[in-house]
C-alpha cells in the first residue's frame, strides 16, 4: 500500500471522525428533552458545564471522581453487579482492544518508542497480538451470548448501526488474523524477504533455509519433500541465525494465526497468485478507517459518552444539578445508553409490555422513543407514537431501571421529561386526552366513526360488567352512590363541576347508552375509593364498572381519537 494513499485515508477518516464527534457532543447542549429544558438557552447549558466541571475539579469531589474512574469505568462495577458474564466479555473487549490499538495500530509511535528492537514478528509481540485479538473476539462472543441467553421473548432495543458496527469489528479482526496467517504460510513473502536480506530468490540456493522455514515457521513450499534431511536443516539454521533470527521468532506463539496458516497451506499458492497479502491488507486497513470515520455514529460512541456520564454522576447526584445541567444530562443519557437491555429485564411493567403487546413500556425502547421525539422523528409515525405514549404513561416510576443501569443513568428524570414532551406534542395520558373533549362530543365521534374502528374486539373480556345488563339492572337509582362519592362532594363547591354522578352513570348504562359515559368527567375523575360499591343497597359494583369504563374508553375512544383530532 502506498504511504500516500494510507496517509490520505487515515487523515480523511480522522477528519470525519472529529467532525462526527463535534456534532455528536454538541447534541448534549443542543437536544432538548422535557418542557423545562426548553426554557434554558444553549449558552446557559455550556456555562453550567464549565461551572460544574470547575467546581468538581477544585473540590474534594476530585477524589470521588478518581474513584469513579477506577471502579465504575475501568472495573465496570455496576455491570459486574448485574451480569458477571457480560462483565467478563466487556472487560475482555476493552483490554484486547486497547492493547491492539496501542501495540499494533499505533506500533510506530507507541511500542517501537517504548521497546527497543520492536518487531511485529518477534515474541512477545506476536503472541500478545494474537492474545488481544482473541480476547476481543471472545468478548464479543460473550456479549452476544449474554444477550441471547437473556432473551425474554421480547425484542431488545437496538439501532441498525449497532449490529453493522459489530460486524465491522468482527471483519477487522478476522481479516487481520487471515492476513497474518497468510503471511506466515506464504512462499511469496519468504522470497520477498530473502531478496531483501540475503540478496537471493534462487530456490535451489535457498533450499536449506527453506527447509527450516517450512518445518519450523510454517511456510507452505509446495516443492519441498518431507521428511526433511536433518543435515539440510542444520545448514539452514546457520543461515537463519545470521539473516532472519533477529526479526523472527517461531510463529507457534501466534496461537490463532499459526493454526490458520496450517489450514490455509493447501491453498496458499492460489492465494499468493491472487496477491491475497495485498488485498487482505487493504481490506483490513480500510475496514479500520471506515470504523474510525463512522465511530461517532455507532454504538462505539459510548466510549466517549459513558465515561463522561459516569464522571458527571460522580460529581453530584442529579437532583443537585441546575436545570441547565439536568437538561444536558438528559441529552447525554441518550448517547450513553449502550442498549444492553438490562433495564428491560428488571422493569416492573415489563410483563405488561408482553400482555399488552407494546414494547413502548420497556425502558430501553422508551429511551429510543424519547430520542426520536427529541429528534422530531417520532411523530411521523402515528401508530408508533401512540404506542410510545401508552408505554410512557404506564411507567410506575419504580426506579428499578435506574438502579440496574450499568451506565448509571438517571432514567426516572428522563421518563418524567419525556412524558412532558409527549403531552406537549399532543400525546398526554389517557385521562388528559379523553377529558380534552366533553363526553357528548366523544359519543358523537363514536357514532360517526367507521364501525370497524369502534368495534375492535369483544368487550366482555375487557369490560364484562358493563357489557352484562345483570350487573347494573338492579340499580334502583337511590342516589346512595352519589351521596357517598367524595369526587361529587369535592366537585360541588368549585368550578370544576363534574358532568354526571355515579348514579347517572349507572342510569345511562341501564338505558343502553354506554358510549355516553366513556368520555365522562365523572368516570375519569373517579378515585376508585369504593365508597359507592360498598354502600350500594342493591349490590351494584359501581367502582368496578367505573374502572371498566375507563379501560373501554381508552380503547374505543382511542380508535376514533385521530378522527377527532383531525376533524
Amino acid at each position, binding site marked *: 500500500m502506498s504511504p500516500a494513499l494510507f496517509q490520505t485515508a487515515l487523515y480523511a477518516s480522522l477528519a470525519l471522525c472529529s467532525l462526527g464527534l463535534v456534532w455528536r457532543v454538541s447534541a448534549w447542549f443542543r437536544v432538548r428533552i422535557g418542557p423545562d429544558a426548553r426554557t434554558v438557552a444553549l449558552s446557559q447549558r455550556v456555562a453550567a458545564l464549565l461551572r460544574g466541571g470547575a467546581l468538581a475539579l477544585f473540590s474534594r469531589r476530585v477524589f470521588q471522581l478518581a474513584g469513579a474512574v477506577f471502579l465504575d469505568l475501568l472495573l465496570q462495577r455496576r455491570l459486574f453487579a448485574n451480569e458477571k458474564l457480560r462483565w467478563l466479555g466487556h472487560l475482555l473487549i476493552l483490554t484486547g482492544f486497547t492493547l491492539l490499538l496501542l501495540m499494533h495500530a499505533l506500533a510506530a509511535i507507541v511500542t517501537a518508542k517504548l521497546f527497543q528492537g520492536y518487531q511485529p514478528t518477534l515474541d512477545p509481540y506476536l503472541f500478545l497480538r494474537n492474545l488481544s485479538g482473541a480476547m476481543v473476539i471472545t468478548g464479543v462472543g460473550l456479549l452476544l451470548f449474554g444477550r441471547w441467553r437473556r432473551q425474554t421473548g421480547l425484542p431488545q432495543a437496538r439501532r441498525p448501526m449497532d449490529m453493522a458496527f459489530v460486524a465491522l469489528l468482527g471483519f477487522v479482526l478476522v481479516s487481520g488474523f487471515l492476513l497474518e496467517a497468510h503471511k506466515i504460510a506464504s512462499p511469496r513473502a519468504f522470497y520477498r524477504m530473502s531478496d531483501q536480506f540475503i540478496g537471493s530468490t534462487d530456490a535451489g540456493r535457498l533450499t536449506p533455509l527453506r527447509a527450516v522455514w517450512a518445518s519450523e515457521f510454517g511456510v507452505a513450499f509446495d516443492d519441498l519433500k518431507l521428511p526433511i534431511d536433518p543435515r539440510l536443516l542444520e545448514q539452514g539454521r546457520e543461515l537463519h541465525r545470521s539473516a532472519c533470527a533477529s526479526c523472527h521468532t517461531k510463529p507457534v506463539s501466534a496461537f490463532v494465526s499459526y493454526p490458520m496458516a496450517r489450514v490455509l497451506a493447501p491453498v496458499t499458492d492460489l492465494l499468493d497468485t491472487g496477491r491475497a497479502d495485498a488485498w487482505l491488507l487493504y481490506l483490513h486497513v480500510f475496514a479500520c478507517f471506515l470504523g474510525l470515520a463512522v465511530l461517532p455514529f455507532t454504538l462505539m460512541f459510548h466510549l466517549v459518552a459513558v465515561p463522561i456520564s459516569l464522571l458527571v454522576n460522580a460529581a453530584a447526584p442529579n437532583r443537585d444539578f441546575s436545570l441547565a445541567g439536568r437538561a444536558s444530562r438528559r441529552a447525554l443519557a441518550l448517547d450513553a445508553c449502550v442498549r444492553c437491555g438490562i433495564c428491560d429485564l428488571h422493569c416492573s411493567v415489563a410483563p405488561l409490555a408482553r400482555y399488552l403487546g407494546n414494547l413502548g413500556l420497556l425502558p430501553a425502547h422508551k429511551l429510543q422513543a424519547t430520542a426520536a421525539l427529541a429528534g422530531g422523528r417520532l411523530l411521523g409515525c402515528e401508530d408508533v407514537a401512540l404506542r410510545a405514549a401508552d408505554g410512557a404513561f404506564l411507567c410506575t416510576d419504580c426506579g428499578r431501571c435506574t438502579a440496574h443501569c450499568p451506565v448509571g443513568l438517571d432514567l426516572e428524570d428522563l421518563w418524567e421529561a419525556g412524558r412532558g414532551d409527549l403531552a406537549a406534542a399532543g400525546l398526554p395520558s389517557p385521562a388528559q386526552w379523553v377529558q380534552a373533549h366533553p363526553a357528548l362530543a366523544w359519543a358523537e365521534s363514536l357514532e360517526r366513526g367507521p364501525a370497524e374502528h369502534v368495534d375492535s374486539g369483544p368487550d366482555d373480556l375487557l369490560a364484562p360488567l358493563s357489557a352484562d345488563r345483570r350487573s347494573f339492572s338492579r340499580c334502583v337509582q337511590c342516589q346512595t352512590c352519589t351521596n357517598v362519592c*367524595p369526587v361529587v362532594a369535592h366537585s360541588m363547591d368549585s368550578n370544576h363541576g363534574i358532568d354526571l354522578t355515579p348514579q347517572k352513570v349507572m342510569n345511562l348504562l341501564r338505558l343502553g347508552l354506554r358510549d355516553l359515559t366513556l368520555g365522562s368527567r365523572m368516570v375519569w375523575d373517579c*378515585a376508585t*375509593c369504593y365508597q359507592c*360499591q360498598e354502600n350500594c343497597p342493591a349490590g351494584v359494583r359501581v367502582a368496578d364498572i367505573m374502572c371498566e369504563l375507563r379501560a373501554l374508553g381508552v380503547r374505543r375512544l382511542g380508535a376514533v381519537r385521530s378522527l377527532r383530532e383531525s376533524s
Partner: protein
Amino acid sequence: MKYALFLGCKIPSALPAYEASSRAVLAHFGVTLVDLEFNCCGYPARNFNRYAFAAAAARNLALAERAGLDILTPCMCCFGTLRHAIRFLGEDAELRSRVSEALAAEGYAWSGKTEVEHLLTVLARKIGVDSLAAAVRSPRTGLRVAAQYGCHALRPGNVTRFDNPMAPTMFETLIRAAGATPVDWPRRLDCCGDPLHQANTPLSGRMTRAKIADALESGAEVICTACPHCHLRFDAVQAGSSDASIRTLLYTQLLGLAMGLPADFLGL
C-alpha cells in the same frame, strides 16, 4: 412465619423508610421476609386493560406460589389490587384461562394457593395485638393519632377482607398497642386523593387538604399511615402549602419507636 415481601413500586423509590421500618419491626417478631423480583402489582393497567391487569397481578401470585410463600405487602394499593385480581380470576373463567396461557408462556402457573396479606393484617391477626403490646418498651403515651385507613385495603370489604368496611377498628387497636391514643375523626375512612393526583391535581389536592384539616380539628397530632401512597400524598400536599400542617408517621415507625428500636432503623 415466612412471607414473600411485596414492596410494590413506590416504597423502594420514594419511601425507603417504610421498608426499613417494616423489616425492623417484623424481624423483631420473628417474621422472615423473602425477596422475590415481583413486577408491578397491576394497578396502573386496571384503567387500561383488564386482562393485562389480571395477568400482571397473577404473575406475582405465581412467583410467590412457586417459592411456596404467601405475600405480605406494606402497600394498601398493591394489597387491594392483588386481592381484586384473585376475585376477578375466580369469577371469570375466560379471563382465567387467558391469564394461565400468558403465565404458561413464561413457565409460570398459579393454582390459587397464594394468600395476600397486608402488613397490618399480619401484625394484628398473625402476630397479635397482645404480642405487639408486650414488645412495647416506651409507650407513646398521650400521643393523639389519627388512623388513615386507606380505601384500597378497606373496600370493598368482601374482596379485601381487611376489616369491617363500615366501622373498622383494627388500626385503632394497633395504635393503642403502641401506647398512643387514637382519635376519632369524621373523615378517617375517606380517600386521601392520591389516585387522582395525575388525572386531576386540583381535585386530588382538595381531597387531601380536607382530610388534613379534619384530623387537625379532631385534635390529632399525627396522621398514622400504612400505605406509601397515602403517606406521600399527605407529605407532598403539605410541603407545598402554608396551611397548618400535621405530622405523618408510618405505623411501623410508631410501633418501632414504642418498641424502643433505634430511630435510624426506622428511617427517622
